[in-house]
């Protein structure tokens, strides 16, 4: 049920520093174009990493799209996020090929390393852990994708090593393990 994607919303006050003018060019480009809703939402998400509530409101005011329609579409498709995400999104593939090659072990290892559950973001906002259906690199299963980089033939340990390396680069401090 795609309805599960709608989480009970905690009252999160969005920081005031969302620069809404960033989506002005998107509005100009797509306003009144047939079938524009998904591209507008996609570009908005590219801008902020997710679709902020304030952006929904602005789009509803300045285009002919209805707020309810936009929310309906955004909550339907797996791609859209309604909450902020970490700097690096870890997409662990749980396609059939990865599943039979034990992708669960990869997610388990990452859950333990990052101390967050599937779908959550680390408190330092560095990583968001996600499960995806199939990345299409089945012959290298199990696979995960971080940004545009794909990592194949993983084990729990090698997946954790990749994360640690990124964390090292980001924080400049070598990991204790």
């Amino acid at each position, binding site marked *: *049920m*795609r*309805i*599960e994607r709608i989480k009970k919303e905690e009252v999160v006050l969005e920081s005031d520093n969302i620069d809404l003018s960033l989506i002005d060019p998107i509005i100009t480009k797509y306003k009144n174009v*047939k*079938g*524009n*809703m*998904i*591209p507008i*939402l*996609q570009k908005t998400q590219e801008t902020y990493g997710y679709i902020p509530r304030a952006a929904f409101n602005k789009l509803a005011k300045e285009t002919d799209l209805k707020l309810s*329609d936009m929310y*309906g*579409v955004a909550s*339907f*498709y*797996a*791609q*859209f996020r309604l909450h902020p995400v970490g700097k690096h999104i870890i997409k662990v593939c*749980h*396609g*059939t*090929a*990865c*599943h*039979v*090659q034990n992708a669960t072990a990869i997610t388990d290892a990452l859950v333990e390393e990052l101390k967050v559950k599937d779908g959550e973001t680390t408190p330092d906002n560095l990583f968001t852990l996600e499960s*995806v*259906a*199939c*990345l*299409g*690199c*089945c*012959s*290298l*299963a199990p*696979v995960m994708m971080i940004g*545009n980089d*794909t*990592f*194949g033939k993983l084990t729990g340990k090698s997946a954790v090593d990749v994360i640690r390396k990124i964390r090292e680069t980001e924080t400049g401090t070598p990991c204790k393990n």
Partner: protein
Amino acid sequence: MENTKVIVGLGSCGLAAGAGKVYEKIKQLKENQNLQFELKKTSCIGMCFREPLVEIIDNNGSYIYGDVTEATATEILEKHIQNATPIKEYVVKTDLFVTKDKNFFEGQVKIALRNCGYMDPESIEEYQARNGYKSIEKISTQNISRTEVIQTVMDSGLRGRGGGGFSTGLKWRFANNNKSDIKYIICNADEGDPGAFMDRSVLEGDPHSVLEGMIIGAYAIEASEGWIYCRAEYPLAIKRLNIAMDQARKKGYLGKNIFGIEGFDFDIHIKEGAGAFVCGEETALIASIEGQRGMPRKRPPFPAASGLWRKPTNINNVETFANIPWIILNGATAFAKYGTEKSKGTKVFALTGKIKNGGLVEVPMGITIRDIVFKLGGGIINDKKFKAVQLGGPSGGCIPEYLADTIVDYDSVNATGAIMGSGGMVVMDETTCMVDMARFFLDFTKKESCGKCTFCRIGTQRMLEILTRITEGEGKESDIDTLIELSNQIKDSSLCGLGQTAPNPVLTTIKYFKDEYEAHIRDKKCPSKSCKALLTFEIIPDKCTGCMLCKKVCPVDAIDGERKLIHVIKQEMCIKCGMCFSKCKFEAITVR
């Protein structure tokens, strides 16, 4: 070595395996040592299990090197380019001598994949050099009528390669018969099947053939606008399609009065999918392009009568379009020569799972599943026992080993309860639990059900609950009957293919592996030792050396024992994580 070419495979699998680094290394070596060869890029040739691949073409012929690393790349350049001595043991494919992987290509017939891995996908000139855009030129110069084009496609026997298996020619005829000022042609590149990557490889490796297929289709049905609905998860495919479309526009292959055909105006747009499996269904896909939630609607009217923005629309899959130019150029008979009575031509399969040679194969219809798995695929990893193949993803089913001599064609596969599907073939060995497989697919369809039809929305949820319960040792004797009953209701009461086929993985596993369900339910045992909740870990006293390693790694302190004394697992505390089992150096722990 003036005319030598060095070609690096840079498809998604290649890149994931490190082909990008290999390419940079070769480029750097070429510049630093001023080596004389032409460095080029290509895409996936299908040997994903040997990625990264580097092909060297010299005066003697072609040599494809597999498993290339930066280090072996250096060695290969030194020996093969500088000293003209190929390193035979690294070569995985060549016509010049026998390689250990030669069987992978034996029996393959490349039609849809005819250019994949043989040309630079970002070069329109290379596509043209391989008969690219010759088919549409043939239509133009020989003045072949729309009806004749449709007849050729009908005669070829080509059936929809996305899984439906409907006659492509017939589909075109319907769209052609519906008169309208505007008509659309759509390429379905929303390859949502987990475990399938045929379309990605075609788009990455040969985007122009898909464009040409669409142009021919547009001509046949008089469409003026085309859409490619591509998964956003395939960034490289989208990039290469965009490059290909720009090149085609510059050459005047897209635009007004194209190929000198008066009044034939046609252009193509790309629509990035936003992640919903149900959008592989025609009417849901159309809703998605229109910018709505991708929910299917009732048919009729079929898209051929009223599709995108209520105009006649024709939708075909990537692989179907890739076949079209070849059929037009070589004729219907050449295509229909391959295959069986009702399934003509070839089919591309993505071979994955517990198979040695995982990758992409294109085989004539009529080959047996066993031949694909053992001859081309090289058999099962670690030579374990072959148990089943899963065909058709979440809509398909599992075909057991004893039916592996089933031939690959639409009707024979359907007779087993599975479906041909788009071509994902996941191979399973004795360690794969079939109940868990069924649970995995139901978990997928439950998440992907759009929620429109009650039986699909709630039925898949209930089936998943039952399957989860069984894998956790809480199964009830009546569960199998309940599953079958729910399955039939979901099949009967769902509007679209997603719901109508969602129970297939459950029904086929019950049909062929009922004993496994019963073992889970009655004996609370998982015969494949895969369902963790049903496992018991025990220490074999004779083998335990008292090294204390298992005790140390146990996360819940469920192991008792002192140094040099036999250890014991306290079953009531054990969480079955398997850490002790994987760490023990003396094979002193058994799983039952």
